[in-house]
């Protein structure tokens, strides 16, 4: 198939699947809290609706920056789709995508001129604590498989079995990143309800539509990468079940856990990351992991 067509199809799949999974996530949270909750398709309708809403520009914004940042946000997650599901390329590029996402989150808050956005922008710097466990997880995957290439990691797993069995603590570190990225997460300090919607507060209309579009793609890409590098070669049904289960589990955790304060959030992430790092390093250097 033509590469451009492949990219377009994968981006549409990522958007639709990501939106439906986020809708499921909201539904699970609602049912745990004994609310009926919105229909699963509501997140998708919500995202599409914003593209047709009137877009207002607050007087305090830095306009070029304010508009440009949402396109960059959408673009980096489209790059995530290209590097992941389309090309099955290097994990290091995906780490770069996530790192740039943090910068965009930071700049999106600062470009609005709103105090809520600015506070969220400061917290985006603190929440970079999530990237350390992510990087450590990628390093351990490299140490075990000897490659950063996703395609080669899949091949390794088809021979040696899924990595979740050999380095489960590294998988836990990656799962913590997914948990942090999920809506209403205990670690989502940049979108604390004290800050209204955090760095998204001052983005309206089609700009918010692009943000929701990016969120859906980001959710899909993160789940896809997690399932691919830890659960071996999967078929479409395997990905579907895996993604539904993870959305369900994160929804349950988020519904039953209060949002942590920024310092508690960072310390919890660093502590879990450090324990998992030490545990995995011990397993590798003592020869538990072949």
């Amino acid at each position, binding site marked *: *198939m033509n590469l451009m067509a492949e990219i377009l199809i994968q981006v*549409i*799949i990522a958007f639709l699947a990501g939106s439906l999974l986020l809708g499921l996530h909201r539904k699970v949270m609602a049912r745990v809290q004994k609310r009926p909750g919105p229909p699963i*398709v509501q997140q998708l309708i919500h995202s599409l609706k914003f593209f047709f809403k009137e877009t207002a520009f607050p007087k305090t914004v830095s306009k070029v920056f304010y508009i440009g940042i949402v396109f960059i946000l959408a673009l980096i997650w489209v790059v995530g789709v290209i590097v992941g599901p389309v090309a099955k390329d290097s994990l290091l590029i995906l780490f770069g995508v996530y790192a740039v996402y943090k910068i965009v989150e930071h700049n999106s808050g600062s470009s609005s001129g709103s105090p809520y956005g600015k506070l969220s922008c400061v917290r985006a710097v603190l929440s970079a604590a999530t990237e350390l466990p992510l990087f450590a997880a990628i390093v351990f995957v490299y140490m075990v498989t000897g490659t950063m290439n996703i395609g080669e990691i899949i091949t390794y797993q088809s021979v040696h079995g899924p990595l979740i069995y050999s380095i489960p603590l590294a998988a836990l570190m990656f799962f913590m990143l997914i948990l942090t990225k999920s809506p209403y997460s205990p670690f989502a300090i940049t979108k604390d309800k004290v800050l209204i919607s955090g760095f998204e507060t001052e983005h309206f209309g089609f700009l918010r539509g692009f943000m929701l579009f990016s969120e859906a793609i980001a959710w899909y890409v993160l789940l896809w990468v997690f399932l691919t590098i830890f659960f071996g070669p999967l078929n479409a049904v395997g990905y579907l079940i895996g993604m539904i289960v993870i959305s369900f589990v994160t929804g349950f955790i988020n519904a039953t856990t209060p949002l942590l304060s920024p310092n508690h959030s960072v310390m919890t992430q660093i502590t879990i990351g450090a324990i998992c790092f030490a545990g995995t390093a011990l397993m590798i250097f003592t020869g538990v992991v072949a």
Partner: protein
Amino acid sequence: MLDYMIYLITFAAGSILGLLYSYKQHGEPFVAVTKFNVPFAIVSIAGWVLGFCSGNVILSAIGFLLAGFVMGERPGYGRKETAVGLIIAIIVYVLLKRPLCMM
């Protein structure tokens, strides 16, 4: 991957249609419906079985449209019907272990 995109689009379209239809039929505030809607259950069973087991892109797309129609109903409606449809489709899928069109 084109087939998966078609399935997702038809499922989402079916869900939106189901939501619109359901709100047209039931305008009252939220009620947890205990009644089992047989016609919708048949639509759901047909949808999920076609979606998972037909092995044909067009039939599967129609199946996911029907399944999405019932599953996408407003909160409180279509839950049991969806559960029955899904369970029967999974049983059929496991029993056959091959697409229906190959029988």
